[in-house]
């Protein structure tokens, strides 16, 4: 992307709205909650100016419902919340997964559980982003570390959501949501936008809303209200969209939903490797915590310590290959996260005993500091 805009001071939550509008968001429904409130506030101001609609709903459940409805009717739609609201949205997120309605859900994480700590950062919703709604379901989760990255990742969240007809979670945290940072935004003309696939109705005698016409597992989508009636249900359904209890229909649908993600891992998964080539210890991190890790790695490298970082930009689907392809020099993996230990479970499963997997966890409402990362790396290298 080429830079054209002048450098400006922008907040993470503001960058989220700007990215969403650049991606084509024209509908937002939400119920404001700290630390995501600025997203609703700025969306309310910006959307009418670009011909979009903003609705403050009565609660998070209704917000998620409105987002699904708007997307079915053809608008790119988003909602934003934090932990307590993310819990409430889960039922309808599951509905969007099964009915394959593209949408973006932003969760600016704060301390939990329950009302927790509204103004303090945490990364405790990692597992909720994957398994917050029940049943086997596909989901994509992205996690930005920088304000500029919030802009780019919100666009990417819409693109992936539209392309694969799957809800995409943008998993932010209080630090990156509230942080104001110098950014230069790309020229709008250089931004790649993906829109949902539509059927060629002239070649189709009768449109089945859930038929895999192209063999890629992604049914083309007709917008509601365009004169092609179809049925949308949260019950397991066949290609016509009507409920079915047949084992073969059930198995086909669930596998197709999962295949949309699993066949496209290389496109969906994104991560950054930092000094991993010859590392003995690699720190795995994401979101704002990764910024502390980068600083720690820079300092430790100056001392000659063989340490690197793997920053996960896509959290779900989990980048197993990135872990398994760490160089033969790697003995230890430290998983730094602002929670009691969530992502470490998956890293451990991925490591399959090849690496020592050690947690660096903080759950006191404060960002993990570079000093804490440095101390942990020294401890691990000493014991190795």
């Amino acid at each position: 992307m080429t830079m054209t805009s002048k450098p400006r001071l922008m907040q993470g939550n503001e960058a989220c709205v700007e990215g969403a509008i650049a991606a084509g968001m024209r509908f937002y429904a939400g119920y404001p909650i700290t630390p995501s409130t600025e997203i609703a506030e700025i969306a309310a101001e910006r959307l009418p100016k670009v011909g979009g609609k903003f609705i403050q709903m009565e609660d998070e459940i209704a917000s998620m419902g409105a987002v699904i409805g708007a997307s079915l009717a053809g608008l790119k739609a988003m909602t934003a919340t934090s932990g307590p609201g993310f819990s409430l949205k889960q039922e309808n997120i599951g509905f969007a997964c099964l009915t394959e309605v593209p949408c973006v859900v932003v969760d600016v994480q704060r301390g939990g559980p329950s009302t927790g700590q509204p103004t303090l950062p945490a990364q405790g919703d990692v597992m909720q982003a994957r398994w917050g709604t029940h049943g086997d379901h596909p989901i994509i989760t992205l996690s930005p570390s920088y304000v500029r990255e919030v802009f780019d990742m919100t666009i990417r969240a819409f693109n992936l959501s539209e392309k694969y007809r799957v809800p995409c979670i943008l998993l932010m945290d209080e630090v990156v949501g509230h942080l104001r940072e110098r950014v230069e935004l790309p020229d709008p003309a250089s931004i790649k936008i993906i829109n949902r696939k539509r059927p060629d109705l002239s070649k189709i005698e009768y449109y089945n809303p859930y038929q895999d016409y192209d063999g890629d597992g992604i049914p083309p989508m007709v917008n509601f209200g365009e004169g092609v009636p179809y049925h949308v249900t949260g019950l397991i359904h066949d290609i016509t969209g009507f409920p079915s209890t047949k084992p073969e229909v059930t198995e086909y649908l669930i596998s197709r939903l999962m295949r949309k993600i699993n066949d496209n891992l290389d496109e969906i998964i994104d991560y950054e490797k930092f000094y991993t080539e010859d590392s003995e210890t690699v720190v795995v991190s994401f979101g704002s915590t990764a910024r502390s890790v980068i600083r720690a790695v820079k300092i430790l490298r100056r001392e000659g310590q063989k340490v690197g970082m793997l920053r996960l930009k896509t959290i779900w689907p989990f980048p197993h290959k990135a872990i398994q392809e760490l160089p033969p020099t790697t003995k230890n993996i430290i998983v730094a996260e602002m929670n009691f230990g969530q992502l470490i479970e998956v890293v451990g499963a991925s490591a399959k005993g090849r690496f020592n997997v050690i947690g660096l966890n903080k759950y006191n409402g404060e960002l993990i500091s570079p000093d804490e990362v440095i101390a942990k790396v020294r401890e691990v290298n000493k014991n190795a």
Partner: protein
Amino acid sequence: MMEERVEIRLSGSGGQGLILAGIILAEAAILDGKNAVQSQSYGPEARGGASRAEVVISNDEIDYPKVTKPQVILALTNEALNKFKDNLAPDGIIIIDSSVKKADTPYKIVQLPIIETARDRIGRSMVANIVAVGVITALTKVVSREAVERAILKRVPKGTEELNKKALYAGYELVNQLT
């Protein structure tokens, strides 16, 4: 070598406009062609309660965005001073309001009537944050005067530009009177 990094911590209570002051300093640094981040920390209350804004300014990329060893601390309440007075960079300075009780610290303390100046000289205690921005700019030169003035005009509510400029100049003057 570590990159040149200046850290500023503005501390006091909610409603004193510290976050806006932080935004203005960060914006001014960007206008000066530098890199800057601003973060904040506050409780769930809308007014009152401890509040702080932090600014990091650097010529380089800013990785860790929080303040650990600030070169400059502004403390507008006793609570803020006592919480942060012992943790600065070696040459750090602490700027406190005249309503704040001095405390023991190995660092240099500069005490100025910031809130009183806003209330009595400008006529609005609300602009104490901008008086403080003037004090920090004149005392530490972390941002240029031209940039800070432009940043203020960009960020304060329409119709209050003159009031805020007066507050900024009053801050400069407080520092001039020190010598």
